[in-house]
Structures are given as structure tokens and as C-alpha cells.
């Protein structure tokens, strides 16, 4: 089937999403929000992967498979990440990464 939306558009979109996520990681201080932004970045990767695997005329669905694995990894990361955040929160009630700076230099 022919398409009017070029592959490049999808990739550009994914790039936009990726760097928005990166910006979020750079500017936000709430650990949970940073985690979300990372998820956005992963999603951007997913978009790119799917787009490639659909549009490059490949014999298999490698891209999509990759995406599946990224899902798994994302889930795992979120689980562990939240656990870490909680453990931290128990010792000192904050999730503000600027306040978690006892080690420096």
C-alpha cells in the first residue's frame, strides 16, 4: 500500500518526543517525573522502531520485536525505579533530586 506520510515524518516525530523527554530529564527535579520522561524517551524509540520495521520493507518484524523487548525493559525499569524511590522516601521524605545531594565533590 502506498502512503502519503513519509517515514521521515515519523522519525522526526520520534526525535521530537525523544528530546522533549530528554529536556524533561534535564529540567525536572521530581524523581518520579524524571522517570516518566525516561519512559517518553523509550516510547520515542519504540515509535522509530515500529516505523522502520513497517516502512523499510523488511521480511520480518524485527523492529516490532525489539519494541516488545523495550516494553519488557521499560516495565522492569519502572518497577525497580519506583522501588528505589520508595526506599529513599522512607529514609527522608523527599523525591526531589536536588535535595538528595549528600554525596558530592
Amino acid at each position, binding site marked *: 500500500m502506498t502512503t502519503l506520510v513519509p517515514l521521515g515524518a515519523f*522519525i522526526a516525530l*520520534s526525535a521530537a518526543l*525523544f528530546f522533549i*523527554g*530528554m529536556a524533561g*530529564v534535564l529540567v525536572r527535579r521530581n*524523581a518520579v517525573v*524524571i*522517570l516518566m520522561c*525516561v519512559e517518553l*524517551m*523509550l516510547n*520515542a*524509540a519504540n515509535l*522509530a*522502531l515500529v516505523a*522502520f*520495521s513497517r516502512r*523499510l*520493507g*523488511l521480511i520480518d518484524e*524485527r*523492529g516490532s*520485536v*525489539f519494541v516488545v*523487548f*523495550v516494553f519488557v*525493559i521499560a516495565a*522492569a*525499569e519502572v518497577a*525497580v*525505579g519506583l*522501588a*528505589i*524511590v520508595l*526506599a*529513599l522516601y*522512607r*529514609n*527522608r521524605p523527599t523525591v526531589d*533530586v536536588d535535595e*538528595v*545531594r*549528600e*554525596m*558530592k565533590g
Partner: protein
Amino acid sequence: MTDLVAILPETIVTAAAVVVLAVAAIWGDARVRAWLPWLTLLGLIAALASPIAYPASGLFFGGFAVVDQFTAFFRLTFIVLAAFTAVIAPPYLRREGVPEAEFYATVLFSTVGAMTIALATDLITLFVGIELMSIPVYVLAGLQRRDRYANEAALKYFLLGAFSSAILVYGFAWLFGIAGSTDLVHVSAAVAKAGLGSPEVVVALALVTAGLGFKAAVVPFHQWTPDAYDGAPTPSTAFMSVAPKAAAFAAILRVMATALGPVQLDWALVFAVLAVVTMTGGNVVALVQTNVKRMLAYSSIAHTGYILAGVAALAAGTSAGAAVLFYLFAYGIMNLGAFASLTLLDLEGTRGATLDELNGLWSRHSSGALAFTIFLVNLTGIPPTIGFLGKFLMIQPVLDAGFGWVAVAIALNAALAAFYYLRVVVHMFMYDPEAGAPRIEGARILSVSLVVVAVITILLGVLPDPVYAFALRGAEPVVIR
């Protein structure tokens, strides 16, 4: 069936992890817990032995896993490191009340991940392996969960790790886009076709370099290292300062040499510069540290620099890859040993020891101090130690590849590093302990194993040929042609 045989070691290690967890879950009392490290060790030894019993080599799982000398070498390295960790960990874990079973299991899981990287022929496998290697390490960092520093270390390590993983996977996505395949070989073919002229390769290359650079703690992607190493419970630090780094370099070798080999000319110089910046930065900051654990963290950054120089010199052929492999092995043992030596001291919190707290260690715990000294001499690179051979073998390809200035930088940095390494020796031997500082008792197994390993580093320094020959064979697959 052969597929399963091929990954027997990985399977065994995984099984060992599960068994450890199960045993601990079923009989939770101290007597059993005392056996957990040996259980772990047993599993690891079995994993090490299994390929000898059931040798396998070639491609498996439809080309998704390759077993070659490269794999073999890294399997050996990772298993040795994990085993060493398991042996030195118990005293600290019990003292600080760190959940033991989970510790060993997590170490084992991480090891499986690292071994997977060595097996990978495909971006997907590689990425999954990297994550399986990293995520347990985040856990290890935070395992002493009532300790603020451990929490902080885990948080920083995790957030930045996830961040870099995202960057890496995005880079992989682009590589996939370029090649239409995730198989490293195909990627390399496509990259060769596209060449660096094509901008998407540029982006992919940058993303991948940054992503992998983070895992290996290359300046400027290194800043997590000191805090994570510093805050994590010391045995975790010992493990995570070596195994993930080795794994990262395994990944770097696979990706850079195979997938991005065609544009080696372009990244070699960048890597060379990064190498010099990394080693210098690490050393210079380590110079001003007063906390030994943190100092070692920075020194590990410096060592990343040395190893990276070898990667930059891959053009020199087998010797370069061999140098990297050998250095990784040497660095793993000596650095792990150095951190492990710190666990001798029973100190508040995770944050290692200040230089003054080490005063007169020689009179408080001779064998420990001796072992620590030997490890430090290794790190300094004074013969006849494996650490020295690492440097010697590293300089060779670097010069061969025409990076004379990098070689000189390595030499000068080694001299610079000698200052802070030997300063630790000064405190251990040449200052008297504070009044009333008791002799350090117990932890017999720990000190014995430390001394044994220290002696091994010297023996391997005198007779390194087996290891180096192995490394040479292991480097064959990652030669850029």
C-alpha cells in the same frame, strides 16, 4: 538442544540464583545463610566448568547467540569476578544487615546479563543483556536500604542509567533504521555502504557512543560513578566497579568493532581524546579525595580511560583487543580486591574509610593491609604485577596505532596516580593507629581470600602468558577488517 548446551553456563548461573533465593526463602536461619556464598560459588564454578564438559562454539539460536573465544574470555572474567565478590561479601553483609540471599542472587543475575552481552550478535540481545546487567546493579547499590547514602547512590545510578539506556536504545533504533536489521554484521555492512557521509550514521554513532560511554563511565558521562560507588554498600561497589565496566567494554567492542567498524577511522580519534580526558580527569580528581572509597571510584574512571585507549587503537589489530581484554581481567581483580579490602574496616555507613581511618592498618590487620597494598601496587602498575602487564600490553597497540601522545598520557597519568595510591600505603604502614584503635579481628575467610587473590595477581604478573594468550584468541572476533 545444542542451543541449550551452548548457553549452559548462563543457565547454570541463573539456576544458581534461583536456588540461592529458594534456599534462603525456605530455611531462613543464620546457619543456612552462612552457606549461601558457598552455594553461589559452587554454581559459578559449575558454570565455569560446564563449557569444558560440554564444549560448544559457533552460532546458536538462529544466529542470535555466538560462542567464540571472545565469549569464553568474558565468561571467565565475569564468573571470576562474581565468585570473588561472593567470597568477600559475607562479613560486611552480616555486619550491616544487608539481605544476603538477594545480594548473591542479584549479583548472579547481573552476571548472567554481562555474559549475555558477550554472547550477543544482535542489537536486541545486546540491549536486553545490557539491561539485565544494569538493573540488578541498581538494586545492589540500594540494597542496604536503611542507609541514606545507599538510597542516594541507587537513585542517582538508576535515574541516570535509565536515561542513558534510553539514549542507547534510541541509537540502536537508528542503527536499525539505517540497516533494516538488528544483526551486527548486517548493520556493519549497511554502515559501510552509507559511510559517515550520511548524517543518520552520525546521529546513531553519537547516540551509541554516549549510551555505551555512560555504562563504562567515560568522561563526560561519568559523574554518576563517584556517588554511586561511594554510597553503595562496599561489596556491591566492589562488584559494580568491575563487572558492569567489563560488560560495557564487551558491548563497546562488539558494537564498535563489528557494527561500526567501517567508520572506525572516525570514532578512533574521538575515543583517543575521550580516553586521555577520562584518565586525566579521573586521576586529577582522585588526587584531592580524602575518602579512600571515593578515591578508588575516581581511580576506576581513570582506568576506564586506559582501557578506552585500547579501544581507540583497535586498528592495531589483535594486540589492541587483547590488551583491552587483558586489562579488563586485571583491572577487575585488582580493583575488586581494593574495594573488598575496605570491608575489613567496621565503619559507620557505607561510605568507606577516610585516609586517617586507615592509619596503622598494618598493625591492626597485617594480612589485610598487605593484600590492600598489593592491590594498590597493581593499580599503580608497578611490576611484577598483573596491573603492570595490563599497562605494558596496553601501551603497545596504542603506539602501534600511532597514538604516541596517548601512550605518553598513559605513562604520565600512571605516575600521577601513583601519588594517591601510595598515599594510602603511607597511611596504612607509616602512621600509627589512633590511640585505642583495636586490632581488627575475625573475617578470616575474607582476609585469607584477599591475600590469596593478591598473591595470584603477582603470580599472574610473573607468568601472564596463559591469560594473555587467551586474550589474544579472544580478541580475534573483534578485529576490524
